[in-house]
């Protein structure tokens, strides 16, 4: 049963731009009152958006500014009405949209709590009963009788939050309000949300905090310019969103770069010797100078596949392609490239001369390629210097900071340079894998330890292990209820190589393959249990119906399947064998089957027959 349902909702805001300064008087004088009451422009804030939030679940709404998130929330709250389509909400709503809206500054916190509570739909008696709890939650015991105008903004918001949350709604709408207090208060709010969830209340959460969505929500939707781009599993929605953000970053950087280059090209060229060169070469000022006897005609940044790009993943390859034209042949030329971060710090610089390339001859049109195999930089925006000059530094064409690119990563490390690294430990030291956010995952790439990885990490791990001369074994399965049959199977698999990576079907793919009642154990728990086995080196959860993609990514040396699989029914066999790997079928022990185990549990009594919701247990 759903608590919130939007079906084909379109919300068109009318912009009365022409009437902005029109007044009643002028409207009457020009007899344009009717015309002016009609909108000049319409702006669809939401366009045919449908989603439904099941009762008791937490639903995240993400998207860029202006994508319609808040409009959606207001529609659900009933503050505005949809232009077309229907909004159906079941149960009492409380909207944490603007905290403390309606507080009157002159009167005390106590009186405001009552009035605000009544506005939100409580009765005086209900507020009376919850009053102490509200004040305690807001941590305002000492100030509750002071007028609200004396409150700091934090106190104000806390009180607003406390009242709204104590309305005890069946449907809670939250719009980016978790930034209301210090760390401790934020935790308290999150705890309160968790309590709501436990009580089976429905939460609709609009936020820019993607990690919150991943951690907290059962489902999510990504709104983009008023349209629903994707909804479903929060991690996938967040991934899709981040990918799109990168793309649009890319476009934006392309524009920035094109503009910078165009501006410099249009600027009048001052005479000889490039007199507009900055006095201090290490000062980071954008510009272009030089005699242009050799001219840089085009600079582009290419990704690993040779396509022009402006956004690069940390650790990915990057090439700078310089097209140059010598107007007359020369034997004195040096090509140079350097990278700057936004603070103007030179991260790296080099040129052909420094790298012992003695110029011989340059004539006509040439192409120079500077390739970085692995862009080991932390996340951020970087700018590029590209130059061609004489050995003595006389500039032919110097492009300073004209080219902008961005390095992205989900890691949160700091500094400039990210050396390739890993952690290893000896002795009695134990870590528990943090699975809360993906952004932390780079920090827990395993060395010899065990971890739950995502596909690219698993691929990287496999590659590293192979590079160290180890044989990587891969097998996959659901592993819903782990039984000794599984353990023996995995032990045998491990013995076929040096490292065993286990692919685990995501909850979604299990449901597709085995029906809605499975899995019993959610994917994170299954992965965690597996990763704690001594014979398992890494676990990767994959979401496709077949493991083909993950096998292709990992490129295992040995692919292990149960002997109950026919040799040519094994998915990914070609991939492995093509690389010279082998497929091994390990005998499966009779008498152990999860499906039978599940049946036995079901028959043995009530209480376990509820299909697992697949909810992330971390929240």
């Amino acid at each position: 049963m759903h608590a919130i349902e939007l079906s084909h909702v379109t919300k068109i805001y009318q912009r009365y731009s022409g009437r902005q300064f029109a007044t009643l008087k002028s409207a009457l004088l020009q007899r344009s009152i009717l015309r002016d009451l009609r909108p000049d422009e319409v702006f669809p804030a939401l366009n045919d958006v449908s989603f439904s939030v099941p009762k008791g679940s937490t639903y995240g709404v993400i998207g860029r500014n202006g994508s319609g998130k808040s409009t959606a929330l207001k529609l659900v709250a009933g503050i505005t009405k949809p232009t077309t389509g229907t909004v159906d909400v079941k149960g009492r709503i409380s909207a944490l949209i603007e905290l403390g809206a309606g507080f009157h500054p002159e009167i005390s916190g106590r009186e405001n709590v009552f009035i605000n509570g009544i506005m939100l739909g409580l009765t005086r008696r209900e507020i009376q009963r919850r009053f102490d709890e509200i004040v305690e939650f807001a941590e305002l015991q000492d100030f509750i009788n002071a007028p609200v105008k004396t409150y700091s903004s934090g106190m104000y918001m806390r009180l607003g939050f406390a009242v709204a949350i104590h309305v005890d709604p069946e449907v809670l709408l939250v719009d980016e309000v978790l930034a209301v207090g210090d760390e401790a208060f934020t935790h308290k709010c999150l705890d309160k949300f968790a309590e709501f969830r436990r009580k089976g209340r429905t939460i609709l959460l609009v936020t820019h905090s993607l990690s919150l969505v991943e951690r907290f929500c059962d489902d999510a939707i990504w709104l983009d310019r008023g349209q629903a781009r994707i909804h479903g599993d929060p991690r996938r929605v967040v991934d899709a969103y981040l990918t799109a953000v990168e793309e649009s970053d890319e476009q934006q950087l392309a524009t920035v770069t094109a503009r910078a280059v165009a501006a410099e090209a249009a600027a009048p060229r001052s005479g000889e010797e490039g007199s507009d060169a900055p006095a201090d070469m290490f000062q980071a000022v954008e510009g272009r100078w030089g005699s242009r006897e050799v001219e840089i005609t085009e600079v582009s940044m290419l990704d690993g596949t040779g396509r022009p790009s402006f956004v690069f993943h940390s650790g990915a390859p990057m090439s700078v392609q310089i097209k140059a034209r010598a107007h007359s042949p020369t034997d004195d030329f040096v090509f140079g490239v350097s990278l700057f971060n936004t603070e103007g710090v030179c991260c790296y610089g080099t040129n052909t001369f420094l790298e012992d390339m003695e110029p011989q001859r340059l004539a006509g049109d040439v192409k120079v390629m500077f390739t970085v195999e692995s862009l080991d930089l932390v996340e951020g925006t970087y700018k590029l210097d590209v130059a061609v000059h004489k050995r003595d530094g006389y500039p032919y064409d110097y492009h300073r900071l004209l080219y902008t690119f961005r390095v992205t990563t989900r890691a949160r490390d700091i500094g400039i340079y990210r050396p390739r690294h890993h952690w290893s430990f000896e002795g009695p030291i134990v870590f528990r894998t943090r699975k809360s956010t993906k952004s932390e995952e780079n920090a827990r790439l395993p060395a010899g330890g065990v971890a739950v990885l995502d596909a690219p990490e698993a691929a990287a791990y496999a590659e590293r292990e192979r590079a160290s001369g180890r044989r990587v074994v891969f097998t996959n399965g659901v592993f819903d209820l782990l039984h000794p049959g599984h353990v023996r199977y995995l032990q045998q698999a491990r013995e076929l190589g040096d490292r065993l990576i286990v692919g685990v079907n995501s909850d979604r793919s299990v449901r597709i393959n085995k029906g809605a009642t499975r899995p019993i154990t959610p994917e994170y728990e299954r992965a965690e249990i597996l990763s704690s086995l001594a014979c398992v080196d890494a676990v990767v959860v994959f979401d496709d119906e077949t493991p083909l993609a993950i096998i292709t990514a990992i490129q295992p040396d040995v692919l292990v399947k149960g002997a109950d699989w026919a040799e040519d029914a094994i998915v990914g066999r070609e991939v492995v064998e093509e690389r010279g790997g082998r497929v091994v079928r390990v005998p499966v022990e009779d008498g152990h089957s999860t499906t039978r185990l599940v049946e036995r549990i079901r028959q043995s009594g009530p209480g376990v027959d509820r299909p697992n919701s697949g909810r992330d247990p971390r929240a």
Partner: protein
Amino acid sequence: MLGNLLRLVRYRGLIVSLVARELKARYRGSVLGFFWSFINPLLLLAIYSFIFLKILPNREEALKPFPLFMACGILPWTWFSASLTEASGSLIAGGNLIKKVLFPAEVLPLVSVLANMMHFLLALPVVVVLIVVFHRMPEGVGLVWFPGVMLVQLIFTAGLALALAALTVHFRDIRDILANVLMLWFFVTPIIYWYQQKEVQYYKEFFDLNPFSHLAIAYQEILFFEGPFGHWKWIVALGVASIGVFLAGYWLFDRLRDSFAEVV
């Protein structure tokens, strides 16, 4: 519309709280507090009395004592004009509520009207003081009408307040226009002069068209003039018309309701 109107009944608790808050907040921090509701009209009356007794003396014998006569008209007028002025800006002032909270917007203009009614009631002791000072006891039978007249004024004012509040959201000039209209309205209403003055008789039909004339006359007949309350027919008629005004105002408000959250 009727459903929304019924919903108002559910919000009476909210309305009461907001009116109480308005009153409390209004005088919070001032030394004399609620006393100001009493002092303000008293000072106003003192000024008018000075002007119309000393500078432009009104020589009508029937209007003596003049301060009491004027109090009967000015106090309801203040309620009326302050209500409309505040109500017209109420939706804009409460924009945060309308935009961010699921909140019945009509509560805001109604709270303006009711809060000013409370000020009116708090100012009534002025009349009592004047009655005592001038030894002019009003007739008991007429006093029974007093709440009825107030109710008519309340309904009439509320209807106008709703319409003005809704329109002001779209045409902000209404607030300024209103100030001028109210000024004019005050002077064409028999508040500082007598409706039976011979100068007024030339324009009798015109005065009869002014709804507030009848309210002012009613208050004056009940509290000031001797003899039975003869104006009751007008008040009953105005009462019926007021219900019409209220429904029309509410209808307009309801029509424009969905635009508030977007335009405010």
